[in-house]
């Protein structure tokens, strides 16, 4: 009896693995919609191909929306017969393995969000060397276009900075005390943004920067952001503008102003539904509360997809290689839009994305 049980148990391993594999379907495959040749975009060439899209870490709503945006873009081109997606789950080795796996499987092009930065360069280089069109985007992996990968589609963070700078100059022509928050120490995004608004706010007598330079370090972590902001509120009696490249992370800390009997100041930042709704709820009570946002960049992936598909299908390669986030909301000028809030969808979503709020909400299910 015993031995039979043991033998049965021994086989369970193999059986379970097989059943698990057999039981699952291709859950993440996009079905490209048939598009008539007439409205085929110029970057969509005639040669059929498959596209791989990989994330280093795909576990938050921003990434869900971004991935969906990527699929949406791919669907515009009927030459792409299949889109594969893989999530590195925060593990560099898994992210490398994902890229290798897609190359081995024979994709024509691969679009990579290289969360681990330069550590992903050898894997990108290997994919490129294997003849696969390789397009990293958003996070710079080191290396150079044409040798280590086909093209890097970064975001133009200097432009974001310039947009913020212009708005500050318009709304605070007599000068302002500015608190700038960004991610990890020394991150290139924060450095570029600073470069951008400094190029506009040239009068250093009028525009003063508070706190740690070039920016207060938050690691883009809402909890850390709250600590930093609380300390700054206590330390500086007069803060006119807070500049941040991760708007929604401010929401938790802003009530600190109200608690200390001050108005929430002006914010120049990136968008998020939660931030828009917070503004709508609190603007009346805070006379100094103005809000301007640039799009948070979910659509950065669309340009990367276009670059990749164009090269793999023989389409026209877009000349643009950098994503410039458009201005999104401005509570003062109302252009391009007033502050937006959709309480019927999650606060985690981004109304600046091309995809509708309702479609984004559907992704969360």
């Amino acid at each position, binding site marked *: 009896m015993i031995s039979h049980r043991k033998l049965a148990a021994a086989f369970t391993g193999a059986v379970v693995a*097989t059943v698990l*594999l057999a039981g*699952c379907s291709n*859950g993440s495959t996009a079905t490209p919609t048939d598009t008539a040749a007439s409205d085929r975009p110029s970057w969509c060439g005639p040669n059929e191909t498959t596209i791989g899209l990989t994330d280093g870490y795909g576990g938050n709503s921003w990434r869900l929306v971004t991935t969906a945006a990527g699929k949406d873009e791919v669907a515009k081109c009927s030459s792409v017969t299949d889109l594969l997606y893989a999530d590195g789950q925060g593990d*560099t080795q898994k992210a490398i*393995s994902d890229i290798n796996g897609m190359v081995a499987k024979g994709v024509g092009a691969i679009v990579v969000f290289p969360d*681990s930065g*330069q550590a992903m360069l*050898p894997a990108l280089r290997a994919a490129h060397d294997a003849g696969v069109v390789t397009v990293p985007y958003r996070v710079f992996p080191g290396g150079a276009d044409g040798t280590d990968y086909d093209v890097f589609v970064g975001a133009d963070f200097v432009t974001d900075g310039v947009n913020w700078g212009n708005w500050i100059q318009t709304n605070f022509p007599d000068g302002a005390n500015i608190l700038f928050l960004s991610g990890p120490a020394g991150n290139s995004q924060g450095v570029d943004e600073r470069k951008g608004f400094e190029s506009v706010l040239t009068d250093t007598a009028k525009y003063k920067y508070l706190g740690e330079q070039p920016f207060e370090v938050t690691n883009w972590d809402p909890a850390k952001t709250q600590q930093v902001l609380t300390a700054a509120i206590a330390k500086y009696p007069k803060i006119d503008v807070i500049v941040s490249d991760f708007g929604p992370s401010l929401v938790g800390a802003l009530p600190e102003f109200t608690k200390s009997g001050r108005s929430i100041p002006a914010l120049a930042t990136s968008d998020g539904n939660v931030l828009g709704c917070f503004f709508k709820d609190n603007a009346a009570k805070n006379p100094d509360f103005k809000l301007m946002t640039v799009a948070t960049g979910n659509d950065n992936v669309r340009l990367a997809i276009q670059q990749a598909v164009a090269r793999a299908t023989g389409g026209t390669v877009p000349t643009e290689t950098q994503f410039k986030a458009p201005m999104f909301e401005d509570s003062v000028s109302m252009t391009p839009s007033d502050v937006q809030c959709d309480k019927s969808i999650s606060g985690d979503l981004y109304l600046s994305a091309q995809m509708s709020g309702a479609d984004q909400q559907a992704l969360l299910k």
Partner: protein
Amino acid sequence: MATNESNSVVLELRGISKNYSGVPALTDVSLQIKSGEVHALLGENGAGKSTLMNIASGTTPPSVGDLLVSGQRYDALTPALASQLGIAIVHQHPAVLKDLTVLENLQVALPNSIFKGAKAEEVGAKLLDRVGLKISLLQRVEDLTIAQKHLLEIAKALATSPKILILDEPTAALGQDSVELLFKLVAKEIANGTAVIYITHRLAEVRQLADVVTVLRDGKKMQTAKIAEITDADLLAQIIGRELSSAFPAKHKMVAGSTPNLVVTNISGEGFTDVSIEAYPGQIIGIAGVVGNGQSQLLRALAGQTASTGTISINGSVLSAKELHGAAALMPADRQREGVMMRMSVRENAALAALKNFKLGGLLSRKKELAAVNETLGSLSVKAPSIEAPVSSLSGGNQQKVVMARALLSNPMMILADEPTQGVDVGARSELYEILRTASANGIPVVVASSDAKELEGLCDTVYVMSRGQVVQTLHDGENREEAMIKAAVTATTKIIRVERENRQRALENETIIDKGRRFLKGDYAPAVMLGLVMVVLAAYILGKNAKYLSDFNIGSILILVCALGFIAIGQTTVMMTGGIDLSVGPLAGLMVVIASFFINDGSPVLSGLLGLATMIVVGVVVGVVNSSLIRFVKFTAIAATLTTYIAIGGFSFILRSAPEGYINQDISKLVNTKFGPIPAMFIVLILATVGMEYLLRKSRWGWQLRAVGSNEESARRIGVPVTGTIIGAYVVSSLFVFLGAIMLMVQIGVGDASQGVGYTLTSITAVVLGGTSLMGGRGTYVGTMFGAILLIQVMNATVFLDLNQTWQYLLQAALILVAAVVYSLLRSRKNAQ
């Protein structure tokens, strides 16, 4: 074996005292041991005999006093030094390692010289044959019976032809035939001039064997005398400090017209067949026979712990196994393993079975418990420092009394005692007999199994002699003499043992595929084979979906990822083999890459590269030494120690590289990534390393010592394994394999990034566990680990190839680990029945 005055003194203990946290265990004991002489050491449990012998064999240093060995003075010995000096000891609790095979136990405990010039198997077989041990050399010691473990211990001691042989109650667990064989062996050693120190409780053995006798009481030497010049009564008086009226209590007198209170009819079970027993109130039933003829199994079935057919009725009502379980109190023979919870206190051990009696509301009444436990322990005169002292601090006899106390406290329906006086001194013995007799007189059926026929003769009213699981003779009061029992058992056995041996021989020759499979599944390599099967099934499935699965690119990229994990997991396996764990491997790999990013860049000179590699190795060795020093000297647990270094190393990496920088030399990267066809050169290195380590683990002293330490640190120390050195070595080896892993990681990520590598801590542990290496230490394989590493990477790759939803990545890994854990523990669950 007459004592010869001219025999030289080979060992002298001078003025030895030993204190344990202020409590004296030995006070000013001096002893002279002469060659060619058997020196018996007598005393009650706790008199200090074992402590004295631990000092003589180097396991324990004395607090005061010194030793002279062959005229050379020593303040203290170590086990290794003692064995060099020709001192061998047979411990009361055999210092054998359960996770190692019989042969490996011999190899790790004995010097290489024993095995020189012949095949290890032949030498091992000869050693076993000498003590009459009929078992396979490849059997795991865990599966041996107590008697077999004792014989193995004796075989080890005799193998070195020692000058001084210490036998600490060697016959306690042995049957009559083994005892006679042992005596013959001892006689032979004596004839060769060996000095023998013999600790026992059995006076008869002392008479039979010893030339000189020394009595210890309460840590002090009472007397040393020639055996011929002292009477049993004198000896007993010295041992217990008082005259014993009689060792055994008076027997029961049959009352006419009484009816039996225990009737067992034709019960059969595993290890015994068709046994019937009848007992009248007040009678004590004895079960005699050579050890291992079904006595223990019978008792277990009577206690309702195992299934049996037939009927058991007490006081007229037939009881099922379920009803008996818990109601009948069984005192198991293997006290250490089954009788007491070593780490729990005396009170907890005693009260455990009777907790329901102390209920007060839904909780326990401390007062009731203490009162009952105190009374019972008092009546058994248990010698314990305190009622809250751990049971492990008690001597053998006192532990047995605690077991007895537990049995009595539970108000049992029946008392079943398996070898109740094994390792118990004369004074305590007579107390135990008295307690059993009282319980019996109160109408509780008492059944005693013992290999000591003299004991059964004195204690029992009716004795059933068992052989090969059957009752071969029933001896009623008056006829149950020792000789009768031995005759019944031995005459029956001669025939039966032969039959059994022939059967076993035949079984070995005609081993069916199922038998072979079963043996294999219990072995170390079963996990590796199972992983291999899973890998093949998975590969076949994917290949069916996509022919590119076996493309050169895919195989190459899978295997190159396997390399980093594989090397690190080999290091992890080494540490886990000692029962430790190394959490620092991940950050260490990261730190080494960060270090490399300063030295091994494009355009940097060769010397700089070499310096970088050297720095990486030195850092690895330092981390290994720090890890193991925290564990051995600062007494951190392995998890705490390596977690400390885990955090420290991570911080250090960030100090060196606050942002990713320092690209690794591309030529070096290409070199490391060299492939032969689809196979990376480094993967071949990994295979060679795995095979090499596996060979060392199985066939070298280093490997045996590694597993010995993991299996049982205390036993390993007693057989002379340098425990601290072995553990330090293991952590250093681990760090050196991390170095090889770091080389792979270096070319994989190509830049000095302080945040990389950390994940290898968990994945390496996962690979090791999948590979079947025990987290408890002592057993496992490098081959299994490597298969585990390959499978993990294969699963990672599979999620992409099968285009699985990302959740499957987690689900697959979790399923693999769960199934592995369940299967492996099922395979290892050892059957209690022996």
